[in-house]
């Protein structure tokens, strides 16, 4: 219960941050990705602000085995750079550039009642299901 409540709080604050920053507005995101047009550098400040806080939080988190609520730390163990990581990220960036939505802003805009965001989220979930299907059939054949 405590775990889920704290997750809800993090999601809520994350969503508010996306709204205030302009990240939830695809027009703004595409303005940032459009270097050859009239460039809007605002979103660099979103990343900068987030990493500024995140850097200190993860520096503290790295030294701990239990979280401040007493749960096990689940930080990624892998530091391996492989083709899956790169190909997947390249695909994600192409999708991001087409619509101006990444996963978080898509969910926030869905909550704001945008029909196109709902279609985006449904397609994104379909993409994730396709990934699960490919992965499970790959595991079966191995």
């Amino acid at each position, binding site marked *: 219960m405590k775990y889920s409540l704290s997750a809800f709080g993090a999601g809520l604050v994350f969503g508010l941050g996306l709204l205030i920053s302009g990240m939830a507005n695809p027009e703004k995101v595409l303005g940032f990705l459009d270097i050859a047009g009239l460039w809007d550098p605002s979103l660099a400040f979103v990343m900068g602000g987030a990493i500024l806080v995140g850097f200190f939080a993860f520096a503290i988190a790295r030294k701990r085995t239990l979280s401040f*609520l007493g749960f096990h730390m689940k930080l990624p163990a892998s530091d391996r750079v492989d083709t899956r990581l790169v190909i997947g990220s390249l695909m994600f960036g192409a999708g991001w550039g087409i619509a101006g939505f990444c996963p978080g802003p898509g969910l926030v805009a869905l909550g704001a009642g945008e029909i196109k965001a709902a279609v985006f989220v449904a397609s994104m*979930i379909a993409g994730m299901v396709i990934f699960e299907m490919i992965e499970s059939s790959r595991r079966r054949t191995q």
Partner: protein
Amino acid sequence: MIDISWNSFTPWSALTGGLLIGLAAASFVLLNGRIAGISGVLGGLLAPRSGDIGWRIAFILGLVGAPVAWLMMTELPAIRIEADYPAIIAAGLLVGVGTRYGSGCTSGHGVCGLSRLSPRSLVATLSFMGTGFVTVYLIRHAFGG
């Protein structure tokens, strides 16, 4: 030469929002011990394991509920979506498959991963930013415009 769109440049709201996003990621790792990676949180619901579902739904509900909470205080900021439906669907599929193969998106790699100074996340972030810039260039300047 890069032309800056000073009219749409909003450094203060961007920075404020960024600090809030950082705060959310900080509280999630310090209280829950996890990376606030939205594609991972959502993707984990599609191959569910028992005891690993509730907090994911709670996190997503927080995200989706943010505009609702905002509306209780004031009017929502503009959300303008230019892409047409076929483009939205293609974008969604690419983002869905891509973030799962790449093990993360803007939040998990871009915010949390770079904060952790993870080389893996740096490569991922450079990759998706790269195709993001190229895709917008192709759509707006090479083919469209």
